[in-house]
């Protein structure tokens, strides 16, 4: 091996490490954003109650809280996946091991990536359409719907990214599939 090829390999490795760091940062940031959105939802509901007692109007508060709910759920998808907190039927998974287990994981991740990708594609299309025709919420809030729907779009995209990420790891790095650990975080 020449010195040159070693340097190339080393750069490749650092590049890969960089990709890893960036991806993990994205998942973490989207999780933090989801948690923040939940906090905003709580504050909106508190303000709604306070305004009712004070006899002040807070039009559309229900709608704003509902948008926060949707945004939080979708922002958190990828982050939740990385914490193994999405539940699945692990009966068959638990009874397989070795190559069979790996193949089963690749199957699950492929299907999941396809579905999440499909959802992301149609979400982008609909948000775009919603923006074009300027679709306005029917409620008192009269929010242009593309704004809250964008959160669903971004969340689905990050979810797809996280699934493809795990799929590639399962295919190319043997025994790295930590997602497979059926350590299901119970419903707390």
């Amino acid at each position: 091996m020449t010195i040159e090829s070693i340097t190339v390999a080393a750069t490749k490795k650092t590049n890969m490490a960089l990709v890893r760091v960036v991806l993990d940062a994205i998942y973490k940031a989207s999780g933090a954003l989801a948690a923040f959105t939940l906090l905003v939802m709580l504050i909106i509901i508190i303000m709604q109650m306070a305004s009712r007692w004070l006899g002040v109007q807070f039009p559309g508060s229900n709608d704003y809280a509902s948008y926060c709910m949707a945004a939080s759920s979708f922002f958190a998808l990828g982050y939740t996946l990385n914490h193994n907190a999405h539940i699945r039927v692990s009966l068959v998974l638990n009874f397989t091991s070795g190559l069979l287990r790996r193949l089963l994981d690749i199957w699950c991740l492929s299907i999941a990536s396809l579905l999440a990708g499909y959802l992301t594609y149609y979400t982008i299309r609909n948000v775009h359409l919603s923006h074009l025709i300027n679709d306005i919420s029917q409620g008192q809030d009269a929010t242009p719907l593309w704004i809250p729907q964008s959160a669903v779009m971004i969340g689905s995209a990050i979810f797809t990214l996280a699934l493809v990420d795990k799929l590639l790891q399962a295919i190319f790095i043997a025994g790295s599939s930590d997602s497979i650990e059926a350590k299901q975080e119970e419903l707390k």
Partner: protein
Amino acid sequence: MDHLTLTGIFILVLFFLLGSGVWIGLALLGAAYVGMELFTTRPVGDAMFTAIWSASSSWSLTALPLFIWMGEILFRTKLSEDMFKGLAPWLSGLPGGLLHTNVVGCTVFAAVSGSSAATLTTVGKMSIPELRRRGYPDYMVLGTLVGASTLGLMIPPSLTLIVYGVTINESISKLFMAGVLPGLVLASLFMGYIVVWSFVKPDEVPEKEPAMSFKEKVYNSRFLLPVIVLITLVIGTIYTGLATATESATFGVVGALSLALIQGSLSFKTFTDSLLGATRTSCMIALILAGAAFLALAMGFTALPTTLAQYIASLELSPLTLIFALMLFYIVIGMFLDGISSVVLTMAVVEPMIRQAGIDLIWFGIFIVVVVEMAQITPPIGFNLFVMQGMTKKPIGYIAKTAFPMFLLMVVMVLILVMLPELATYLPDNMQTTPS
């Protein structure tokens, strides 16, 4: 291909995706996609987006993350310690002694927690070591705790009832109230079992605690004050119509945070940990609900729910037979799925059936919670068993065996519910209506 074959393919795809281990929400999404492609010429992707958007941005759903968050905060406080200290003096005199702290502890904590796993971990954190130290036999300590933890989903707030209410469009406040009396009856059944055990096996009951004077007991009850305040905030505001389910959850979160602050257990870390934990659990449930919403749409096109409802009606079963058939059905489903998934997955099909048979949907919500919870304490898949295994490192089989008497008591509970439906319907019929 004829309609029947297509329906068969649709159902097979659903079971295959679920069984092979695809994450439940996505498996429902995938099956729904196949169903839509088979039965309609509609643009599937756009219908998918619309169904998912309206299911995810639902106002009733906002109570869900808040109640989860409340449980996450309380788990990180000294509440379980305090509850044990406050309850033990009153319960040690009963036949069966401190084992009753498991049941009463779960009942009390269930009134501020929405899930049975949270109830199990919070109560067990304190009661398991304390009861073991005093020499209570392991099988009674673990069995009564696993059994009583199911009260977490019966007594309001309850995540399963929120999900049920959102799925069939019923008032969550009413469902919550419906769970109160059946929950208390079930708790008394568990306590009765402990009493009977203490008379059948008196040699296994450890020696009595040194008795406290009445004054001391009352003084010790000060430890119960925080939890009583929280219960009043959460259940009281719903029953009196002062708050909707979401608003009472907000009271709960603020109350739990204040409690943690007063106790000194609130730090930036516990705050973010609890919030992130709630975010994950709520996201997990939201994904299942999103998948289920699209699946329900696809189910509608297969005409499976109406066909099945008509078929069941043509059999002219008595409601009683139908209820027992459904009980068996849910126990089998519960062997593979968790409670919330079993509810959302089946309601699209079961709801028309229930309406056809003239069964009250509020009552059915309580029934489904008991039955689904029964499945959670039986192998092979029982979430409460897994949680218990995580806490005690005992094998699943052993824990399941200790919980089996509780399972039988829950069957008795179903019988009581069938014979006395007013148990579930009395409070919802007599509560104040909530503000719009």
